[in-house]
């Protein structure tokens, strides 16, 4: 499954071997009887963005927690910025910045005070600290809100402040655990721009996401985590090539028509997803004129009463289906707002199969 090509296309890589920013081999971790990570291998080249993709409960946060010294591994080796997380956690902590899934900011402090706190904990002197604080406020568009308590901040502003706090110590490697989950599209784009800027400065970024689109926009390389193992590893394009191009969503006026349509596709033995609430059926289709023509012909032939039709690019559901034969059980896996669209195999067309 693993892609073994060296990252020779990366501009920061010299022809000689560059020590990886993150190197994980055979990582295992269980919680009680539950094996959460079962032999994870990862390599991240310095100055690149690496995205760990997976549905809820795949073990993404556990990976981040181990890489950031919060949780001990039960097996395997993990090196971050050249240091072993088990034996040299303090050296690792010196080189990393972490933005967790929930904004880790002090709500009773203003934005500026939060940054100042980080500057003090990084032992910057007063002058250097103030310079860094105003620079980051500027960069993350928080100057106007700098002296307001963080409780008054919007979700997007909190994430920006959180990321700014992570950057106070000028870390070599930054971990972002689902940086845009729950953000509106505009805040999401702002975060994406911030991440892109970081990499331009030579920082290595390790992010987790449930959104294929996010990985697509940001990541040089992607790994897909499923049930505690990496099931695919490569560039986003390589990943997408393995996914049979997206799907078409058909909406029907009533359950009766939905039933009829679902039955014809099921007879076909094709994989379809069905959502009774929105009266929609998802059928395979890459959106090319030929495939659409074939689909429309079929709708005519079978006299299906389709009210609305939309073409969708491959999303995490499609990737998962292609890689594991299962859908995700996550309702909000599509940042464009397509919710409640679980996939299922033809025998269980009424409910998406749970990953966990």
């Amino acid at each position, binding site marked *: 499954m693993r892609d073994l090509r060296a990252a020779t296309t990366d501009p920061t890589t010299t022809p000689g071997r560059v020590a990886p920013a993150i190197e994980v081999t055979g990582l295992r971790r269980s*919680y009680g009887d539950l094996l959460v990570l079962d032999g994870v291998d990862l390599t991240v080249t310095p100055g690149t963005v690496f995205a760990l993709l997976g549905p809820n409960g795949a073990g993404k946060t556990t990976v981040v*927690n181990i890489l*950031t*010294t*919060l*949780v*001990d591994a039960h097996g395997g080796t993990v090196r971050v910025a050249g240091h072993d997380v088990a034996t040299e956690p*303090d050296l690792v*902590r*010196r080189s*990393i910045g*972490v933005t*967790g*899934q*929930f*904004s*880790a*900011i*002090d*709500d*009773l*402090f203003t934005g500026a*005070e939060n940054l100042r*706190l980080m500057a*003090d*904990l*990084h*032992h910057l002197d007063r002058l250097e600290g103030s310079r860094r604080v105003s620079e980051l406020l500027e960069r993350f568009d928080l100057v106007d809100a700098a002296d307001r*308590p963080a409780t008054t901040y919007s979700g997007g502003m909190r994430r920006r402040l959180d990321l700014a*706090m992570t950057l106070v*110590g000028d870390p070599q490697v930054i971990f972002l655990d689902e940086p845009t989950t729950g953000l509106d599209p505009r805040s999401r784009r702002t975060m994406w721009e911030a991440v892109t800027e970081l990499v331009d400065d030579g920082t290595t970024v390790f992010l987790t996401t449930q959104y294929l689109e996010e990985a697509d926009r940001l990541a040089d390389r992607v790994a897909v985590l499923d049930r505690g193992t990496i099931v695919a590893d490569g560039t986003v394009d390589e990943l997408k090539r393995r996914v049979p191009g997206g799907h078409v969503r058909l909406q029907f006026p009533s359950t009766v028509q939905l039933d009829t349509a679902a039955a014809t596709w099921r007879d076909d033995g094709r994989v379809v997803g069905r959502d009774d609430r929105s009266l929609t059926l998802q059928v395979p289709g890459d959106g090319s004129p030929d495939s659409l023509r074939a689909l429309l012909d079929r709708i005519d032939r079978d006299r299906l009463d389709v009210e609305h039709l939309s073409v969708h690019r491959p999303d995490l559901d499609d990737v998962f289906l292609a890689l594991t034969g299962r859908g995700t059980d996550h309702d909000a896996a599509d940042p464009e707002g397509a919710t409640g669209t679980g996939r299922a195999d033809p025998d269980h067309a009424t409910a998406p199969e749970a990953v966990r």
Partner: protein
Amino acid sequence: MTTTTFALRDTSTMLRREFRRTLRYPVGPSVTVGLPIVFLLLFVYVLGDTLGAGLAGPGAGRDDYLDYLVPGMLVLTIASATSVTPVTVAIDRTAGIMDRFRTMAIARSSVLAGHVLANVAQAMVGMAVLVGIALLLGFSPTATPVEWLVTAGLLALATFALIWFAVALGLVADSVETASNLAMPLVLLPFLGSGFVPTESLPTGLRWFAEYQPFTPIIETVRGLLLGTAIGWQGVVAVAWCLVITVASWRWARHLFHRDPT
């Protein structure tokens, strides 16, 4: 800079953070300072006359009970500070900022030390205010300056011990609400000791508990120091309790702090 200077610097940063948080959201100090004052006024003015007579015989009254009550109230101040600490710790833990600190190259001890020192300081201020008010109401201690100093030292030691225990409670709680409930019983302990009435007046089972629980020797020692009543072994027992609670709670809190986030 050496490791120790770093640790001191980080601890002072954390302490400043706690002070600033306290000023921004002064619910903690209002409970720590306010609760014992309300109880003091209630007990002295509502119950004091009757309790004083019952305690020291006919002819005695409110003023006698005030003298008897103050040591218990000082310990109640510690207990009410202890009920606030788990909440502030749990807020840090659940809000994720404690995890942020744990991924930074700071002296790890400073995170909990900041909480402990800030809360000890808060309790000490609360006790000073309480003594001030008690003096205004007619509290008449017989203590020499040295006895006052020893009293302050013992109370600081007891506060330190119980705040460490409270920090551990805040770390073990899975939510802020649980943290707040866990510490509630501590506020009752001075009542189930010699804080409000002598333990001899209690029914057997309760009396046994009252005599052996840690607050009673502390209260008795403070009473002896401030009012000249007999201390006996109580002083030694009080200090021993404080040391045992400190070491056990500190180890427990440290273990919980290093525990993986769940």
